[in-house]
């Protein structure tokens, strides 16, 4: 319950991101603000502060003001308001996590059901594909795909996804986790197929399509639903890792992972830039995991999904 509350709170806060940026902080978190200034206790100070000591090398963005009206968590090296970016970044992180989980669970359910229901060649081909994806450690596969697709973009027939698009990480993350969900669904479908009611439906001459949608789907759906919150958490963590390696969400768009990456160069001087998004990821993932446990208890106490992380 607390977990759900926290999630809703995070969701609300990222929803109000534009309002916050526009009406409270008066900042555009996607535009560099290298020559910007802000007012702190009556004094106008530059957002990027030149070093005046020693040899005078280096320029450091201002640190946290702990004042919600401007630079609550300080600025990044482009002079942008970190807190505003944090809220916007949450939108992308949650969006990518959720949408890729939907795609992943959807695709996996379909493939798993097809493989489990039809068996034979279809099953063999799909299972081998799962094996291959499985033999690739998840992160390596995701990174390989990201590096390549970031260079070329993704062309799926008529659909072209540009290198900077959010859909790139979504598709990649969804794809790499498909076997993790598809395998259990396949197993479940195979055991369902042996059950009387399906055999009866087959015997009565119902079409495969009808059996799959009317009989198999309703019985596999609960276990897929059980996977869902955990999948969102995994996908969000994967997205953040890709973005951290700067092969996920592309600038100036932000996600929590990209902000951590931005903060890396400032780790020792302005640690909040990297700390804050990490804390947000942890809180969100913890809530999702707890929620996932709850959903599992409610739906299917025996289901087990293992972290591939």
């Amino acid at each position, binding site marked *: 319950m607390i977990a759900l509350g926290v999630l809703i709170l995070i969701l609300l806060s990222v929803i109000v991101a534009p309002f916050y940026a526009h009406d409270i902080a008066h900042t555009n978190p996607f535009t*560099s603000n290298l020559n910007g200034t802000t007012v702190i206790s009556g004094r106008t100070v530059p957002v990027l502060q030149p070093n005046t000591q020693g040899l005078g090398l*280096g320029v450091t963005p201002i640190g946290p003001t702990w004042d919600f009206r401007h630079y609550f968590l300080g600025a990044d090296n482009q002079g942008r308001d970190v807190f505003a970016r944090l809220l916007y970044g949450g939108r992308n992180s949650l969006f990518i996590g959720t949408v890729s989980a939907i795609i992943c669970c959807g695709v996996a359910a379909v493939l798993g059901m097809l493989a489990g229901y039809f068996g034979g060649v279809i099953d063999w081909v799909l299972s081998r594909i799962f094996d291959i994806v499985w033999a690739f450690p998840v992160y390596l596969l995701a990174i390989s795909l990201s590096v390549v697709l970031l260079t070329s973009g993704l062309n799926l027939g008529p659909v072209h996804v540009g290198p900077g698009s959010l859909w790139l990480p979504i598709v990649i993350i969804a794809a790499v986790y498909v076997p993790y969900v598809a395998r259990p669904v396949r197993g479940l479908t195979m055991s369902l197929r042996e059950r009387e009611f399906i055999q009866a439906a087959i015997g009565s001459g119902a079409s495969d399509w009808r059996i799959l949608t009317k009989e198999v789907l309703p019985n596999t759906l609960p276990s897929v639903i059980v996977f869902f919150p955990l999948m969102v958490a995994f996908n969000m963590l994967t997205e953040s890792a890709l973005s951290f390696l700067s092969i996920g969400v*592309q600038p100036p768009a932000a996600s929590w992972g990209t902000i951590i990456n931005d903060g890396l160069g400032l780790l020792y001087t302005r640690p909040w830039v990297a700390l804050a998004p990490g804390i947000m990821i942890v809180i969100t993932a913890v809530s999702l995991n707890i929620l996932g446990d709850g959903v599992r208890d409610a739906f299917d106490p025996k289901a087990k999904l293992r972290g591939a992380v």
Partner: protein
Amino acid sequence: MKFRSRWLGVASASALVAASLVTGAMGAQASTPSTGPALTYQPSHAGGTVKLLASSAGGTLDPQVNYTLQYWQLYQATYDGLVSFRKVSGKASFDIVPDLAVALPKVTNGGKTYTFVLRKGIKFSNGQTVTVKDVQASFQRLFKVANPNAGSWYAGIVGASACLAKPATCTLTGGVVVNPSKNIVTINLTAPDAEFLDQLAVPFGSILPASTPGHDMGTTPIPGTGAYMFKSDNPNTKLVMVRNPYFKVWNAAAQPQGYPKEIDEIFSNTVESEVTMVENGQANWMFDPIPSDRLAELSNKYASQLHVNTLTSTWYIAMNVNIAPFNNLLAREAVNYAFDKNAAVKLYGGTKLASPTCQILPPGFPGYQPFCAFQKGTGSTYSGPDLAKAKALVKKSGTAGMSVGVVAQTDTVDLALGQYLQSVLNSIGYKATLKPLSPNIQFNYIQNTNNKVQISETQWYQDYPAASDFLKILLSCSQFHPGSDNSINISGFCNKSLDAQMNQAETLMLTNPTKGNALWAQIDKQIMTKYAPWVPEFNPKLIDFISKGTGNYQFSKQFYMLVDQLWVK
């Protein structure tokens, strides 16, 4: 020359020296600056191990193949050519001095024949004596191992075309002629070349044992003649150099005695940890640029261990003048007006580390005449951006609303500049996206016209202080090769009349450097004000951070810090 990536060009003697060489070639013997300054050796500081840090290895260890600053810095202590750059601090480091040759060569036959007398009694680190046969074999090997510049610099040697066609059987007959009894090497060129000695003084011109196999030796060390020799090379952990047991000083200006007993270059560190290790005295020096967030800390706490050196280099934005929107002059001018060079300086580390520039040639360069075309004010120094004007120009050009892809490298500073550029482009009415690529790829990627790069972040470090090194190499028609990864004229800028002026300036340099440089200055100004293919950003400086107690920091303009001269004792 690229600083961080694998590309490195030749550093040449100053234009003046080059000119005098050619003059000398017309009959007289070249003046011999071999008696100039050299480092004096202080034996009390000898010993110890120097630990150098780098985030990654620099590639093959073969001096006739490797083209990185990272390893050229080490080759200065391990290999020798017939001639070499003077191993000292300061401007004199661009002088060419005799190395394995007794003296600078006699140039005859209208600048086409170079005659070297090889020193006697010098031994390779495997104990073999250096002979003229080794010299001849080394030149042949340049073609056998497909030296990157075999087809350009060394193509002028007689017999080179046959070698290029059939490298395996390269003999350079008539090109490199040796006389073992008199210890003389004669090199014949097909045409006079003012820069030939420079091309021999770089590591490509290293003399290696004749027995060295005719293929890239990779990580297998090849014996050399320097004060040190490579002992082992593991690209994932470290490279080890130890003293060459057969080394005796013959010309301290060319190959001085080194101090440390051993020099290690340790790889696979993160840049952050490199800083920490040097701070804590666990290593002596780091190769990689200091991350910007550590700069303030270092400059306040470790000021005495930082060495800031001026480099003649320009960081710039290359706009592709052949595809939309930057095939439109107004659009290019707009970006020049909009991009705030002062902001870019901040991203590089502040005004102490870089100064904004509006032109191609860096300050202090031959032919440098300050001017600033696109800015808020009117002076010859940069005063600030004019966003309103930029927006108006974009509107006028009819390119507003177009999509623009910015290609930058993934390292911190370049990426930050890329992000800023993207933000600027968006603010003047384009739809900009950013494509960060690994430093290893980006430089080739932006050169190849097949990749349709519209605008990119890049930089150029001088090969040698001659205006042609910037203007001709980066912006002449001959350097533009559509569809090739090796098309250094990234903007694809080609103007026949400017090309003619460049050729004229080059010829002038041989006879009247003052007039020649004046013409280069004019070309610099014309290219920027009339065509604006670039947005020049700033001229950076180089910082070396050495650990406490590391002594005798010497900065050669050619090879940068002289690693073998460091004191750790």
